[in-house]
């Protein structure tokens, strides 16, 4: 097969001084699915943004089919048949699927937008590639999986022959993921070339032909997928050997710490998002919450942590009703919260590491010295915490936005765990971060459980849920549809059936999760 893209000696320095790519060579051949892997911050997205013309590199050349090209804008790259589906959705929520799809190359009739034509284009394309979407739905109303499809269609619609998919599976359920893989294979068979970025090495093994591994801004090797094992890939990514599975002894649950009784919630538009949800989390156990995103997990977490009010039902934490409590009051009961969206809730990226670490205890009396804050105590506490959680930064005064994704998540985890919470709500605690950091965080969670904390783990990542949880509930359309007291009896496939609403336990079985 012909080499379709070659990047040579790419060096990219961000305005904040981060050297994201350092003399990277990268090449793909036509018609392959090529994996790009590496730890968080290794420079994968950056390299792809350079290829997509979105970022300009300081040094280096790009060749397409052997001809050198200058890609100075996305428009440029699009013209060369390159399409990119970003790590974060690039959609305009208030516009319809069709409008999002044709944006930038809108069909017109007499100078005006031709909406019907846009819908038609969407339908045709969607049928052609078997990526089913509703053209006239507003993007803000459709589920994540569909948004992903819209993103891919967007690229195809612009005639992309080379598709860059930056962590497309991070937000998908197993079923959605396998559906996506089927579609990718179909695309490949139709002659498209795909660059696939993922942290999930089994996925890489599953559908990719070759893999390029990056570490600290450099390319550390290119392999045929059959020539290399996942262990070897992960060793190359991290530069050292690392065990992947978590050692954990059997849980010894004690009294309930969190009890949720008959919780219902209607969102702003009046849709019922939670329906009569009841369960308990006991001291010394990790209760997993599995479910496709958008089935009420987000609201559940927001209500328990006080971010959302106006619900019906009773929530007690350590026998105290939280109905009248502020977020601060809830935290005061000994609740920690690792939020799902770390850049929105987890950190203030323009504040320093230190400032981010103390946000839940800045007014603690031992941090105060009369009217002023006691900087000495805070500094030494911060230094200790940075050490303990192995946060890679050259100074505690460094802005958080200068850290890599994994280290940012460690800042969040360090802050939430170092208060020794009695109840920890961990929502997607390792989403989109590398194996090393994820492992570290998993181990910390297990340690916490062992010292008697109650942990509610909400995650769309089935591996994570299956590995960590002591017991598990499954949510579907705002209801608990299954409860597994013993994890060893559950298979991934079976979970999938519950998550998609194809199966449901009896009320009695479900009711067992309410230990009160």
């Amino acid at each position, binding site marked *: 097969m012909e080499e379709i893209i070659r990047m040579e000696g790419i060096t990219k320095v961000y305005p904040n001084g981060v050297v994201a790519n350092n003399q990277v060579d990268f090449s793909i051949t036509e018609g392959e699915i090529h994996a790009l892997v590496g730890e968080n911050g290794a420079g994968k997205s950056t390299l792809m943004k350079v290829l997509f013309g979105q970022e300009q590199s300081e040094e280096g050349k790009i060749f397409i089919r052997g001809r050198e090209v200058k890609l100075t804008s996305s428009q440029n790259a699009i013209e060369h048949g390159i399409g990119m589906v970003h790590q974060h959705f*690039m959609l*305009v929520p208030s516009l319809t699927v069709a409008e999002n799809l044709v*944006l930038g190359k809108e069909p017109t009739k007499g*100078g005006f937008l031709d909406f019907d034509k846009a819908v038609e284009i969407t339908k045709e394309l969607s049928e052609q590639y078997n990526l089913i979407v509703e053209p006239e739905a507003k993007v803000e109303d459709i589920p994540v999986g569909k948004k992903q499809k819209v993103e891919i269609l967007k690229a195809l619609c*612009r005639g992309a022959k080379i598709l860059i998919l930056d962590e497309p599976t991070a937000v998908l359920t197993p079923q959605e993921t396998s559906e996506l893989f089927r579609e990718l294979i179909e695309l490949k068979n139709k002659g498209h070339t795909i660059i696939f970025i993922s942290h999930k090495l089994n996925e890489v093994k599953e559908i990719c032909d070759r893999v390029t591994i990056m570490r600290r801004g450099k390319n550390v090797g290119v392999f045929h997928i059959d020539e290399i094992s996942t262990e070897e890939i992960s060793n190359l990514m991290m530069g050292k050997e690392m065990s992947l599975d978590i050692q954990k002894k059997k849980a010894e649950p004690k009294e309930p710490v969190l009890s949720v009784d008959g919780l219902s919630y209607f969102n702003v538009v009046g849709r019922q998002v939670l329906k009569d949800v009841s369960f308990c989390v006991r001291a010394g156990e990790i209760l997993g919450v599995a479910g496709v995103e958008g089935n009420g997990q987000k609201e559940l977490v927001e209500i328990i942590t006080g971010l959302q009010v106006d619900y019906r039902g009773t929530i007690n934490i350590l026998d105290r009703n939280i109905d009248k409590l502020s*977020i601060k009051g809830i935290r005061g009961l000994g609740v920690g919260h690792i939020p799902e969206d770390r850049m929105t809730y987890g950190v203030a990226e323009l504040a320093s590491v230190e400032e981010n670490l103390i946000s839940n205890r800045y007014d603690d009396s031992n941090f105060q010295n009369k009217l002023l804050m006691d900087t000495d105590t805070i500094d030494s506490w911060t230094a200790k915490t940075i050490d303990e959680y192995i946060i890679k930064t050259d100074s505690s005064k460094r802005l958080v936005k200068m850290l890599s994704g994994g280290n940012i998540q460690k800042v969040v985890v360090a802050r939430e765990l170092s208060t020794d919470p009695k109840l920890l709500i961990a929502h997607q605690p390792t989403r989109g971060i590398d194996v090393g950091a994820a492992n570290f965080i998993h181990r910390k969670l297990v340690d916490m459980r062992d010292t008697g904390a109650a942990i509610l783990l909400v995650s769309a990542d089935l591996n994570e849920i299956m590995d960590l949880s002591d017991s598990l509930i499954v949510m579907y359309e705002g209801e608990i549809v299954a409860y597994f007291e013993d994890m060893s009896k559950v298979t991934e496939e079976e979970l999938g059936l519950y998550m998609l609403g194809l199966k449901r336990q009896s009320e009695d079985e479900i009711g067992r999760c309410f230990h009160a």
Partner: protein
Amino acid sequence: MGNLASIIFTAEFGYAILRVTTPILFAAMAALISDRAGVINIGLEGIMLMGALTGVIGSAFSGSLWIGLISAILGGVLMAMLLAYFSLYLKTDIILGGVALNLMSSGGTIFILYLVAHDKGISSSLKSGVFPQVDIPLIKDIPVVGEIFSGHNILTYIAFLSVLVIYIFLYKTPLGLRIRAVGENKDAAASVGINVRRIQFLALVLSGVLAGFGGAYMSMGYVSWFSRNMTAGRGFIALAAEAMGRGTPLGTMLTSLLFGFADALSNSLQSLRVPAEFVQMIPYIATILGLVVYSNQQKPKKVKGEMEESV
């Protein structure tokens, strides 16, 4: 109070509302276009003022009203381009840029006026034109309605027409779609190859065009000369009207009219027995009340914090 009614329920009062609303409406539409593209244009006041001056100069030196209008638009566009260049290309904070633009305009117009007319206050030595008033056939013969809606300055009709034009532009044309996309999520727009900066530049330029119309109306319609600081805060009012109208052309038109009503009322009430200061407050208080009534009904997220601080 009988007096009050005798002021409000007259055709003249209705007519006055439309007249008073015109410059605000132009400026509010200008605010709307740039706001929808995701750039706040605080410099409207200055842009309008510059348009008012360049319009008078253009009209006086060419002897043509239409060249005057074009000059006003050019003046507005140049100012808007300056703001756009600094804020979009040199990354000057857009609010600071707007404040600086207003500063530049309030001094700069006087400086230019002095260079052109050797006068620092008013352009009355320049013979500039005034846009004609037009009667609308049929409507003009209907009693009351005709008196209110007919016989306005042509720019007044253009102002109200611009609402429709902008509506169509924003919602029915490719460029309008791009402007809305850029304003809502510029990364998304950029990812499909839309040049975000160019779209925002264009939106600011359009904003300059509309504010230029507003300026032209001030100095060649409302009155027949330029005088220092003659926009007198209308650019700010327009921002309020746009915010109150929640960024939709129709809503913004209604809120502009509301302000026009309040202003017309304050102009009329003065002749009665209310302290001038309070009467002059009416439009501003009306705007704040409007903001309260029309602003997002959704409560700020965390009101719960107020109820109880800690355990």
